[in-house]
């Protein structure tokens, strides 16, 4: 053997390029089919989400993370002595890099607990809003971003999870999903199919509200609907200009100015909604016939994109609207509360579909828009300002993995059939525990 190994001459032959290409194709096919076999599906053909990862991930998975999270929340809600607050909170701020110059209120003695400080507010103007179409909804670190291919979202390089599992799939009649309509007690409705809104009995012309008073910019037709694009409707181009040009008609109908005074809140609401409509570049009468898609069917010329933002313990933990959009529904997925740190994201597959999360689904200027705050061990509670019924990280019997409870916000705005939000508008936040 030694002689043969050392004395046999090596003769090299050229390998045809086609053979090499075929070999690569075969290897790729084998890899893909192996990955497909590894995905477990249930009787409905939906992927079954399981804990996958190295042994230390399974060890962490065996811990009572939800109970730990609630205990953590309780401990941090305990009131601190007033004399201790400046020292304790300054130490926390120093350890986690919080900027105390931008918080409101600035006096640390006004924060009764670490939990209250964690959910702190920022001073007005502390975060200038860029005029770009998509802005950051939170302070944090970009973990990943890109396009979604074949309904798989990339968690880290080479590890993906299902878009259906993240956002939920429509399953009418499924006993495990429950839909409720979140009522917003506003006396405001659309008067039949005409372009008028009724606010506490006063009719407002939507045409006036939505900006016919603004100078139209030639060539900017609404891009949201094939029917709309065939119309001669023109929309102003600059959101800033549009907002500035919005006005409230003091009298539309038979009321006098004096009687309108008591309806200010409803008017402001209407103007806010109209402002969102303008920034989205839509006409409410068309939007009323729309509903959110699941994001699976994009329009021709469009693609699906994603981005993941990680909020570290010292970051400001409220989140804001990333664009002008309308939230049509929320789906609350009860789940685990693993840490979502970059370390864990690299090791635990399906992390973002295993954890408790709130999927807010709706639409923006370009079609489907979804925002998913995902809880973690230390921050299991997710608050949504316009949804007081939402309760996350609660004790009790947990729903099976992958199921969710759903609420629809169609009553929030009769103009837009959902909860309208302007860019950087505060939406909610994460609380300790």
């Amino acid at each position, binding site marked *: 053997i030694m002689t043969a190994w050392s004395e046999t001459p090596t003769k090299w032959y050229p390998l045809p390029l086609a053979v090499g290409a075929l070999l690569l194709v075969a290897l790729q096919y084998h890899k893909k089919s192996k990955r497909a076999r590894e995905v477990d599906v249930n009787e409905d053909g939906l992927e079954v989400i399981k804990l996958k990862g190295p042994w230390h991930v399974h060890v962490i998975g065996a811990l009572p993370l939800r109970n730990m999270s609630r205990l953590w929340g309780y401990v941090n809600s305990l009131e601190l002595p007033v004399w201790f607050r400046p020292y304790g909170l300054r130490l926390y701020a120093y350890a986690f890099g919080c900027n105390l110059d931008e918080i409101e209120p600035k006096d640390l003695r006004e924060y009764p607990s670490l939990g209250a400080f964690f959910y702190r507010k920022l001073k007005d103007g502390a975060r*200038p*809003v860029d005029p770009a179409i998509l802005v*950051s909804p939170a302070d944090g*670190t970009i973990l990943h971003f890109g396009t979604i291919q074949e309904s798989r979202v990339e968690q880290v390089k080479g590890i993906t999870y299902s878009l259906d599992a993240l956002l939920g799939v429509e399953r009418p009649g499924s006993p495990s999903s429950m839909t409720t309509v979140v009522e917003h007690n506003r006396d405001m409705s659309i008067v039949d199919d005409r372009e008028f809104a009724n606010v506490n009995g006063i009719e407002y012309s939507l045409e006036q509200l939505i900006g016919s008073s603004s100078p139209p910019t030639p060539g900017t037709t609404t891009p949201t609907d094939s029917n709309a694009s065939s119309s001669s409707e023109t929309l102003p181009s600059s959101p800033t200009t549009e907002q500035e040009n919005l006005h409230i008609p003091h009298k539309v109908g038979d009321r006098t100015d004096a009687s309108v005074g008591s309806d200010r809140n409803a008017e402001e609401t209407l103007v806010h909604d109209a402002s969102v409509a303008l920034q989205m570049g839509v006409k409410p009468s068309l939007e009323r016939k729309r509903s959110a898609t699941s994001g699976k069917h994009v329009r021709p010329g469009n693609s699906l994109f994603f981005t993941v933002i990680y909020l570290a313990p010292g970051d400001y933990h409220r989140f804001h609207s990333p664009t002008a959009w309308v939230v049509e529904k929320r789906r609350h997925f009860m789940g685990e509360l693993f840490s979502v740190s970059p370390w864990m994201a690299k090791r635990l597959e399906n992390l*973002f579909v295993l954890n408790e999360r709130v999927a807010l689904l709706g639409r923006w200027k370009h079609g489907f828009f979804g*925002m998913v705050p995902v809880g973690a061990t230390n921050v299991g509670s997710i608050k949504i300002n316009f949804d007081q019924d939402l309760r996350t990280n609660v004790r009790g019997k947990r729903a099976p993995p992958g199921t969710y409870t759903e609420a629809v916000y169609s009553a929030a705005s009769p103009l837009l059939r959902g909860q309208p939000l302007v860019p950087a508008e505060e939406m909610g936040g994460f609380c300790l525990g």
Partner: protein
Amino acid sequence: STIVLVFEAPSDFEFNIHAGDKVKVGQALGD
């Protein structure tokens, strides 16, 4: 905690961020 954004946009939409970047509320992510 983490926030995942999933959205439909024209195929020529471009992110102007990089993985690992620190971002603040209201900072542009793409256009």
